[in-house]
């Protein structure tokens, strides 16, 4: 692994001012036996270097599919991308050739998967799997690869890395395996890391270790980070800005502080209200009623309308776009947007 100076050198050789990743109007569909499942219906988000974007949303809202589309690891068919742009450093990856995309994947954009045990090959030693990255992408020799593997394991704080480099995945605990996955993602010093629920399988103490490590390394390498999760606590801890997804669309975007304090979309509000609070002890928790929509038949108008406490006739007829959110006096709120006709009222709810 190169030193920080070298990393900085690379940073200089390819300066990029705009957003590292800019997703525009992305649509993804799955052709299934029962019809076309519209999993992603116009997602827009962007991440800059050094920034952490958290993508929130309930299970099935299309968070992972969006990430997979960015990585270019969706199986087509059944998936297809009828519309949209995924700009990486200003260039649309959907228009790139296969080879060019492959060069970006892993080297410039890396992904950390949720299930570390199944993402690691059980019959190969951890050191070998880490070293393989260098051998494949940089033509390193066996000995070099091994040395780099040890260095990486050190970096993600695996104790006694030298002794453990030849151990197999099952010999590590869940948290350590997740750290090894992080090491793998970091191996080639990517510009952007997509972490898909990196800690959902872990308990709080290990989760804290992993998230701290991720944040630290991100700062060190000045990487962009997309953190996919449905844990509002984790998000509050590490994110800079948040995108909330519902039924394949971004329904709200906001800087982290604003979102928790003043959500501008009824769905976000419902999510925040569902968190058990101390003063609610012995009372019922708030729960968003109803079920997430069937992607084969997304309700017309605002997809949230059958579950929305605020829904009006207009919500059933028209699809709200992502409106910019502003204060009452018209001062725009930096980075905020809400896909609700009644964002103003929602903003004032609390």
């Amino acid at each position, binding site marked *: 692994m190169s030193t920080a100076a070298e990393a900085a050198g690379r940073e200089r050789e390819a300066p990029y001012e705009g957003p590292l990743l800019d997703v525009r109007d992305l649509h993804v569909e799955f052709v299934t036996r029962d019809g076309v499942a519209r999993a992603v219906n116009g997602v827009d988000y962007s991440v800059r270097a050094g920034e952490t974007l958290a993508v929130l949303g309930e299970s099935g809202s299309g968070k992972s599919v969006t990430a997979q589309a960015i990585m270019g690891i969706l199986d087509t068919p059944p998936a297809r991308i009828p519309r949209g742009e995924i700009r990486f450093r200003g260039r649309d990856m959907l228009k790139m050739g296969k080879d060019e995309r492959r060069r970006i994947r892993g080297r410039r954009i890396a992904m950390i998967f949720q299930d570390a045990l199944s993402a690691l090959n059980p019959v190969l030693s951890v050191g070998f799997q880490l070293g393989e990255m260098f051998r494949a992408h940089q033509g390193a020799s066996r000995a070099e690869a091994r040395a780099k593997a040890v260095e990486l394991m050190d970096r993600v704080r695996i104790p006694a890395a030298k002794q453990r480099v030849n151990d197999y995945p099952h010999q590590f605990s869940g948290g350590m395996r997740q750290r090894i996955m992080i090491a793998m993602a970091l191996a080639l010093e990517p510009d952007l890391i997509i972490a898909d629920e990196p800690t959902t399988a872990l308990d709080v103490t290990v989760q804290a270790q992993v998230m701290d490590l991720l944040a630290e390394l991100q700062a060190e390498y000045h990487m962009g980070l997309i953190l996919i999760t449905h844990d509002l606590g984790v998000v509050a801890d590490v994110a800079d800005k948040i995108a909330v997804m519902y039924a394949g669309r971004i329904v709200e975007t906001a800087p982290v502080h604003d979102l928790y304090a003043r959500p501008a979309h009824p769905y976000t509000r419902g999510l925040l209200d569902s968190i058990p609070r101390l003063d609610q002890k012995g009372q019922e928790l708030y729960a968003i*009623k109803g079920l997430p929509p069937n992607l084969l038949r997304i309700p017309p108008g605002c997809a949230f309308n*059958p579950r929305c406490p*605020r829904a009006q006739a207009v919500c059933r007829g028209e699809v709200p776009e992502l409106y910019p959110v502003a204060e009452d006096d018209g001062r725009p709120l930096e980075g905020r947007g809400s896909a609700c006709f009644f964002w103003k009222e929602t903003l004032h709810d609390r």
Partner: protein
Amino acid sequence: MPDIHDEGPYEPRPKPGVSRLDYAGEQGMAVEQETLVERDVEKREEARSLWGDAWRDLRRRPIFLVSAVLILLLVVMAVLPWAFTDADPRRADLVHDYLRRPDWGDFFGAGWFGYDAQGRSIFARVVYGARASITVGVFVTAAVTVLGGLTGMVAGYFGGAVDAVISRIIDIFFGIPLLLGSLVLLNAFSTRTVWSVVIALGVLGWTQIARVMRGAVLTVKQSDYVVAGRALGAGTGRLMFRHILPNAIAPVIVVATIALGGYIATEATLSFLGIGLQDPTISWGIDISSAQKVIRTAPYVLFFPAAALSVTVLAFIMLGDAVRDALDPKLR
């Protein structure tokens, strides 16, 4: 249940009499209405079960219908061959009918498929051969599935010493090639009938199913729903037959239906090697083997029994596929 959500002022109240969870058709979304409303218990549907649902589903599957009709036809042919043809499959007329070509006009007649090297009606032999081949295929498969399925299930379910012993036995049997083993076994019979072939193949074949079953049971046994069954106080029988079997049977069905074709083919090979069924018995296998001698001059002698064999095997594989899919509620 009381109204557990603090509903906002904009909440559209559900119409009374609407069931709690109703599919809001036009909106295309299941809305769970938590409010307590009258529910219509009158709309009593029959209680359904996996097997009932599977049967209901099967009847709608074209694959199942096609394969079922074919199999029914074959079974009737095996039981009542004379209903299909007047010709005598054993009548050899070397003077007139030696290797005569198929006569398509002779519909369902003796000469329809032509005559073999001994001047016997191929159509009649295909019809009469069904009995031996289907008997071997169906009975070996049935025996093997019951025997192998049960041992595999017992081994997988009880584990420990029981499993160790059964697994070793399976290993020993599994080492013996089906063909070679049955050659040796059949040699022990002085007169070989269809049933001796069934016994020989059954004795050697059960291990394949047992292995598959054991593996499937081992996986299913770990499932939470089996543990949940135990937590309810369910006994061994219920756990095995209600919880484990329906979830472990899919691979067994696939393997068994594919193996069925294999057994018919093995019988054919054994007959070809002169160790399976003997001549007065009529079987596709015997005919396929004897057709080899004239394959250059009269390929149709081989074609018809071979085609009958293929269709039979295909029909059973299709049936197996359809049944397996029908037993999986997710595929309905």
